[in-house]
């Protein structure tokens, strides 16, 4: 095992922060507001759905360079922040001058009540760090994770477009980013363990130095809750549905953050986040990238990992239908072994996984669609963007000329786990893609699913959606011919 450190070290703007003890379990937003009096960061929902708490987070990538992305600070916990550089809205004005983003927001009436504004300013500042120019759709894309109830957004879009002609100050050097990077590099390679007792309860937060140490520690403390991006964990914790006393942070483990491809398949390390996977898949499986385009919003995608999505085991997880339809498999790692499990047999019931306590998901192997095949993915949600699915579906057909040679159809949101619609698949074989065939397929599908009514839609609506998506698919194909 590598050497041990008992404190978390990170930077906020230009200030070095060292945390040992119970503050390690605070959401970053609370730490900023109530420990550092940096109240510019606002909190509305505590669940990643409004962006009011957006900050820019710098973390060391595999080359030990700081890489800055924006995240929601309400679902980032202090124990995740070791060796990070957090930039808050206060960090924009350390020299007492307004940033051009701020000036533009003022000039174009981009704020009304002002409560969403710091989050929007941070998202736009992040945009200016990445791009010199941007058009309106890119601005909308960037701000998908930021809700504003006052402005109707139009003034904010105007304020953003006006930034195209502005020269930007070098924010990162004004915050001594290079120096911070150096200091953080020196602290890398340690295992970090924070232990303390709060109200008579022992709590532990672990950040392993590397994968091997992670697996050793997981074997030693099998009960410890893994935390990657914390976009599920954080919501569950903030809403009182999870009360973990022992956590192990893994999103920084570069050994399982890989993205690989060859002619037959793609491989994603479990800690690869959705922003990276989205870009990576754009040429090989653009359909998947399109689903990821409407997966949460950038703040979430920058943190959320594929491993977390799979392990969380929600039947409406957006990545699952395609993984099911293309027969992906999972690499499960433990200190002593490695095994490969097809995703189609990984879920044994609602949130019941074929995963041992000493194991972690290491990666995903996704076979690419074969040459003569059709892949279509659907996500239906109440709001197109930043919403959890009502129903999802993947249709994958391998073709022999006009004929369907084999079919794989996976549907989410219509049962306790993602379902393969076997009777539909069987029915489709040797048939062609035409509306009459898919009308019958739709009828069969309805018999195979067991949706429930909930806040995202009634049972009847979900049933109808599954049927209609099959029919829509065939009509779309017809329109293409």
């Amino acid at each position, binding site marked *: 095992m590598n050497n041990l450190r008992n404190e978390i070290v990170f930077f906020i703007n230009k200030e070095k922060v060292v945390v040992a003890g119970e503050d390690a379990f605070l959401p970053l937003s609370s730490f900023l507001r109530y420990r550092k009096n940096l109240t510019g960061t606002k909190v509305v929902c505590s669940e990643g759905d409004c962006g009011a708490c957006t900050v820019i987070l710098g973390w060391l990538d595999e080359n030990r360079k700081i890489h800055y992305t924006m995240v929601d600070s309400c679902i980032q916990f202090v124990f995740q922040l070791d060796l990070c550089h957090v930039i808050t809205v206060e960090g924009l004005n350390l020299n007492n001058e307004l940033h051009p983003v701020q000036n533009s927001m003022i000039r174009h009436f981009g704020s009304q009540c*002002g409560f969403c504004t710091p989050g929007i300013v941070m998202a736009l500042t992040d945009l200016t760090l990445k791009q010199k120019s941007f058009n309106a759709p890119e601005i909308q894309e960037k701000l998908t994770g930021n*809700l504003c109830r006052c402005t109707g957004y139009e003034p904010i879009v105007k304020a953003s477009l006006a930034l195209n002609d502005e020269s930007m100050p070098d924010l990162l050097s004004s915050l001594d980013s290079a120096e911070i990077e150096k200091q953080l590099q020196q602290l890398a390679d340690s295992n970090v363990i924070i232990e303390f007792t709060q109200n008579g309860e022992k709590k532990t937060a672990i950040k392993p130095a590397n994968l091997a140490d992670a697996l050793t520690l997981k074997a030693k403390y099998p009960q410890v809750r893994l935390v990657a991006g914390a976009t599920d964990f954080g919501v569950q914790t903030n809403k009182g549905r999870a009360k973990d006393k022992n956590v192990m942070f893994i999103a920084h483990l570069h050994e399982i953050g890989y993205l690989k491809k060859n002619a037959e398949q793609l491989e994603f390390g479990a800690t690869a986040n959705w922003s990276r996977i989205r870009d990576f898949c754009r040429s090989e499986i653009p359909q998947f990238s399109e689903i990821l385009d409407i997966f949460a919003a950038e703040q979430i995608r920058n943190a959320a990992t594929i491993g977390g999505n799979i392990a969380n085991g929600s039947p409406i997880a957006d990545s699952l239908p395609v993984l099911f339809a293309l027969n992906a498999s999972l690499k499960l790692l433990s200190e002593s072994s490695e095994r490969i499990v097809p995703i189609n047999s990984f879920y044994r019931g609602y949130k019941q996984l074929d995963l041992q306590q000493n194991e972690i998901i290491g990666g995903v192997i996704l076979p690419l669609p074969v040459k003569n095949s059709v892949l279509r993915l659907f996500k239906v949600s109440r709001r197109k963007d930043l919403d959890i699915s009502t129903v999802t579906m993947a249709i994958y057909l391998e073709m022999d000329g006009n004929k369907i040679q084999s079919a794989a159809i996976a549907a989410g949101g219509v049962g306790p786990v993602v379902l393969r619609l076997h009777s539909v698949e069987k029915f489709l074989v040797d048939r062609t893609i035409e509306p009459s065939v898919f009308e019958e397929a739709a009828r069969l599908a309805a018999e195979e699913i067991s949706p429930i009514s909930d806040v995202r839609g009634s049972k009847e609506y979900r049933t109808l959606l599954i049927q209609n998506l099959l029919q829509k698919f065939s009509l779309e194909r017809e329109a293409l011919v």
Partner: protein
Amino acid sequence: MASNGVYIPHESAKGHVTGQAHYIDDLPRLHAELYVGYLGSPVAHGKILSINLDKAKKIPGVVGIYTHKDIQGENLFGPIIKDEKFLAYDVTHFLSEPICVIAGEYPEAIEKAKAAIELEIEELEPILSIDKAIEKQKFIGKKIKIERGDTSAGFAASDHILEGSFITGGQEQFYLESQIAFAIPQEENDLLIYSSTQNPTEIQKVVAEVLGLGHHEVVCICKRMGGAFGGKETQGVHVALMAALVAQKTRRPARCGYDKDTDMKVTGKRHPYKSFYKMGYSQDGEILALEIDYYSDGGCTADLSPSVLSRTLMHTDNAYFLPNIRTTGQICYTNFPSNTAFRGFGGPQGVAAIENLIEEIAIRLGKDSLEIRKKNLYGPGRETTPYGQIVRNNILPNLIERLVTESDYHARLAEIQEYNRSSKLNLKGIALTPVKFGISFTTKFLNQGNALVNIYTDGTVQVSSGGTEMGQGLYTKLRQIVADQFAIPVEDVKVMATSTEKNNNASPTAASAGTDLNGNAAVNACEKIRERLAGFAATLLADQAAGISPEAAEVCFDDAQVFDRRLPDKKISFKELVIKAYKERISLGERGFYATPGIDFNNDTGKGNPFYYFTNGAAVTEVLIDRFTGELKLEKIDVLMDIGNSINPGIDHGQITGGVVQGLGWATNEALTYNEKGELLSHSPTTYKIPGIKDIPLHFNVNFFDNPEHQINVLRSKAVAEPPLMLGISAFCAVKNALSSVLGTSGANINLPATGEEILMALQKTGVAKMQS
């Protein structure tokens, strides 16, 4: 230079963008400050059998737990009818209705105390729908009515009769800053309360009366709110009471704020409505008779429901002359948190009801709905509303014409019809809907405002009024108004936090009337000071040799200077005048007052002139619908608004874009879902979907319509906050228009909001969701 009409940034914009503008939770923690939470009813309707606090009180960190027994004043309040208890003691009326207030040294102590309180409660059968309330005849207040003409004769003369029911859903205000208040004990019994409220006077009054204090012992201050939209007109009071009670009992500062989930679960929303209608119309689409019976879901107390309901009846005509009409309204009692104000305040439900019907007429007659709308508009010889007010300066016909041209409505309608004939996957729809919104509180006495203007000896000015700032730009406009009164730069004017100490007995900042009431009051104060200053300046500027004697009427304030019109070269600066006036012992402060003239309404007869004027506008919205999923996309929006002279076009433009988008959310996507226990399931942004930035089309044009005939009100301006919200209904009508292309002339009967599910189920009913190819 005058600031009237200038794009002057929001007065707090710099604070907003830097995060330095303070909201209540940003105020530094005070020494010995306590956290405050509460235990609420575990059932929607129940009988409290016993409460045992013994165990809970022993939990470390718990400082106090208080029940109704600890209330020193009256455990009862309500803005219209006094029917709301602060802490329930016999029966509970909604899920999470407060029973015990808990003060803790830290938040965890409160959570533990909640779990340790032993509450025995017997569950009673709740009323959880309008239908159930109607069935049980459980209503709040009496039935109200507005009518004129003879509907039976109208029906008899009609070619077609349409009868049915229509539902408009509730809507969460979704202000970003949840309800919060901070109470700090002062000397003796006095309390200082920082509250995120549209109505500091109401907070002062209710806190005083419930705690057994005089109004004069409570000061309430509101610097700004992180959004309100009506949700903080009355309902800021619960957190204020809890914080105040703890402060009173412990003599320690106490802060109480809801998290988002709690806020959404326990505070009131826009009223859901169900209405039953019967309409008669001619073959060419003229409405000859209309009867609508509205049932609003009031929740468990009256709150503002009676006023909301009467505004619905007053807006059922929207922009249309309805010769024979009878509208009635009843507030249903249900076991939900009391519903309350939300931008539009009953107006949207009335406008939606009539616009839904107009769209139905068009669909059923196979005509363009614009033609039906135009046929029914107010016009010469048809300018009296059902409640008897004459529609003056009726510019809507012209405004609509201009919008039709600018939006290229007719060409787009033709294209859409063509598109729908050939598209198998999607449908398009378009609609133009107008709004004519009455400005003033319909409760006469609320139409008053006062403002305090103080000039300091360096020539800078502070102004404060009873009006609160929730983002709408009131402070910015007040600043402009006052600066222009003295012809000084806006930078020399500061608008101070709204405080009951400075402005007493203020009305809520609501009904879009914030600038009208408080701006006029500020002008009144400034005029009085200016008169004194002018009189004094006249003596300074007079020139006996030049034959110019002191004449106050000749004194001009311009460009931060003061001069006599007859001797324009002899100027003194405003600052110099002020210091000289001070030394001459001339008062440099004044309180101004304003009461809106000429308005009144008789609730018993349903007749009167409740509104000072109307704000008008119209919008064209185009939508795209996925035939297979019902998913809706807004394609284009064009808006034209008559808001008189815009004091600040930047602010007003933002009020319009923001209002329209809120209306779009209500009309298309914001759905409140409850379970059978009365628990709100869509209680956070994860499940309650307000419009996001990508939901708003990039084609979103907003223009002002010039209305030089509007000569009344402060700087000839018009209120702007609420009216645009109702333009969101254009999207709902556009959905109906789209559906009609496949549903045919049998109508497109959907309820509002037109969610994907609502749309798909409507398509499904006729079997057209399944595409027969």
